[in-house]
């Protein structure tokens, strides 16, 4: 089985060379083949080929193959960068390093290393080392304080997925096909036609299909199986909810407040202060408001509107909404702050020209203000996503602790529940790797879309 994977790599390596180079030599084909095999072999040999041992499932093999493909791909990319350099081609990385080719001080080589060493030591010791250990842990069955641990290979990952390997291959392929199909249609349609509108709708659904495919790939649980599908769904719902609420609300308030008005800066101060509030305090404040016994919300609904609101922790919709509301409220200040800054850059001339053209205020907003804000929107999207992935932990811990029946247990909350509260480090680490992959996906998307804009939020 393993040999089959290596053979495929040996064939695909030269294909990659053919695709990337204008006039590849035989030598380059040879190198491509060898590099692909080495890259593909790296993970199985590092892990002792455990995924192909007896008793492993099709899903295990599949995971092993995808890792091999990833390794081969990475090795080929590095090889290609070296080829390009020897060809004198400007690659992406050359552009990046060009940007850092500054200098001035002519002192010993060790001086810059001295200056960088504290940063490097801490980054390596407290970020790179634990990152590697997270991967190692994720292949083990181990508990805090246990005298021994058992290697389970991909077991911790396999149990998060559905058991049918064919479906696991088919779903992502279908989603990718949908995305490329929509992109193709988009390329073939003329601006402003119905055809174009159809293509735009289709590409939106195609993007959604990626999320649907992932939903279908995660294990639904039952019969003692791990249920990761609900965790994924909770994470998507709560993340989308927080980001949408926080950003739309932030933009709306900022649009209201950016005009020059008497006492403007005072108003702004009163709008943005929740930025300083912690997720934990946000959880505490909304815990009070929604408390079924003593909270003002239930009481008001009952006394003023005569509505008997059920305990928010007993209804999935209410519990998720309350988390979204608390977190969205907390991040609102941050979004208002940046949108206010962004709105200052919208050209007044353009708006005035639009007013003369007789555009309604809504049209002005959609046609002029929104596009002008798109860099800020994008920046906020990424920071809000990070917030919704991680910082929401404290809010959940104060408000629902995952209730009802795990419906507000998002990925990070589940990692702590499994890894720390149950002491199941291996499974927790495996789920951490998934979250890691999600973060990498967001960051790569960010780098690609925004041209290497550096994010300023978080650490």
């Amino acid at each position, binding site marked *: 089985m393993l040999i089959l994977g290596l053979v495929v790599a040996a064939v695909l390596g030269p294909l990659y060379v053919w695709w990337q180079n204008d006039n590849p030599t035989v030598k380059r084909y040879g190198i491509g083949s060898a590099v692909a095999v080495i890259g593909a072999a790296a993970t199985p040999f590092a892990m002792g080929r455990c995924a192909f041992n007896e008793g492993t499932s099709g899903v295990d093999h599949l995971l092993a193959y995808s890792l091999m493909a990833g390794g081969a791909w990475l090795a080929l990319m590095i090889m290609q960068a070296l080829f390009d350099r020897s060809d004198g081609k400007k690659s992406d990385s050359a552009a990046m390093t060009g940007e850092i080719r500054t200098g001035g001080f002519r002192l010993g080589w060790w*001086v810059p290393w001295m200056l960088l060493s504290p940063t490097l030591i801490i980054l390596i010791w407290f970020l790179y080392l634990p990152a590697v250990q997270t991967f190692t842990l994720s292949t083990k069955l181990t508990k805090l304080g246990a005298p021994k641990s058992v290697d389970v290979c991909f077991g911790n990952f396999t149990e998060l997925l559905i058991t049918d390997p064919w479906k696991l291959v088919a779903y992502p392929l279908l989603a990718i096909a949908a995305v490329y199909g929509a992109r193709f249609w988009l390329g073939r349609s003329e601006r402003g036609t119905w055809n174009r509108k159809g293509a735009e709708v289709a590409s939106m659904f195609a993007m959604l299909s990626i999320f649907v495919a992932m939903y279908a790939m995660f294990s639904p649980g039952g019969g003692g199986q791990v249920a990761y599908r609900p965790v994924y769904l909770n994470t998507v719902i709560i993340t989308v909810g927080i980001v949408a609420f926080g950003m739309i609300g932030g933009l709306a308030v900022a649009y209201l407040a950016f005009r020059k008005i008497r006492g403007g800066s005072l108003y702004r101060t009163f709008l943005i202060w929740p930025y300083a509030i*912690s997720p934990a305090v946000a959880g*505490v404040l909304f815990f009070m408001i929604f408390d079924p016994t003593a909270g003002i919300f239930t009481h008001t609904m009952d006394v003023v509107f005569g509505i008997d609101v059920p305990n928010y922790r007993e209804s999935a919709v209410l519990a998720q909404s309350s988390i979204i509301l608390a977190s969205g409220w907390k991040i609102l200040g941050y979004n208002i702050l940046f949108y206010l800054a962004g709105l200052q850059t919208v050209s007044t001339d353009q708006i005035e020209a639009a007013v003369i053209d007789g555009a309604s205020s809504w049209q002005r907003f959609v046609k002029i203000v929104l596009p002008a804000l798109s860099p800020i929107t994008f920046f906020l999207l990424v920071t809000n996503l990070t917030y919704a992935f991680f910082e929401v932990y404290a809010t959940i811990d*104060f408000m629902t602790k995952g209730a009802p029946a795990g419906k507000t247990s998002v990925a990070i909350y589940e*990692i702590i529940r499994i890894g720390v509260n149950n002491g199941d480090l291996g499974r927790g*680490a495996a789920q951490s790797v998934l979250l890691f992959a999600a*973060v990498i996906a967001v960051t790569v998307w960010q780098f690609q879309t925004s041209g290497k804009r550096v994010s300023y*939020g*978080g*650490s």
Partner: protein
Amino acid sequence: MAEGLTPGVKRRTWIRGRQWPYHISLIVTAIVIAFPLLYAALIATQTNTEIFAFQMTPGSALQSNFDAVWFGRDFAGAMWNSTVQTILVTTGKTILALLAGLAFVYFKFPGKWIVFFLVLITLMMPTEVMILAMFRLVSGLGWQDTMAAIVVPFLASATGAFLFRQHFANLPAELLEAAQIDGASPVQFLTRVLIPLSWNVIAALFVIQFVYTWNMFLWPSLIIRDESKQVVQVALQTLTNIDGALTYGPLMLAAIIASIPPAIVFLLMQKPFMSGFAIGQQK
């Protein structure tokens, strides 16, 4: 606050026509946003009995709630721990980021691009995704229940390093030439020339890091178990139960107290914060 951010764009004109609809809508919005805190402030003065009766006027228990929180549960100690942690992290991070920015912009050295990528890649490595391994690592060092555990891992920051790199790179090149003619060492150059020109960026980083560190919850909740070493955000959690049952007043009061330092820092430093960001975003 945000005026003067973008000198190139025409200044905002005063609103034409009547202003009062804007005033009213802004006041309403501000009240809605402030509501959770106002409500908490009300609850903070009340006893459980008053809360259960939905009394809408300040209660009788502010003093006793304060005593229960501040002295009874040593919330003061937690505030102190958080203050020390935040000051150490913020200061250390700024210094390390300044040094890294200096090295990136004003030095040429072999292997620079490797270091650059090493730092760059950490932007997509949030602590949270490796928190279990980090927990094992840091407790393996015997650092559980120590200040080191909640300070040292957070001293280095790619964000800070890149913020200063970008800022330094945009400064005029003549600065360095002049400094070299004077025979200044890199550290002298940093302290005498660069830092005085970077206060806005430093302030922006200071605010972000202050709020970020002060509001840290997950990591301290794992690595700090000893209640006397705990930071405020986590200490709040034990306050849900003051004396045998859920007591809302002290909890709300503590939540408000815990929010005061970052709120003060943020509000006082709004202006440099925003202009620091404007510098960061020019390019």
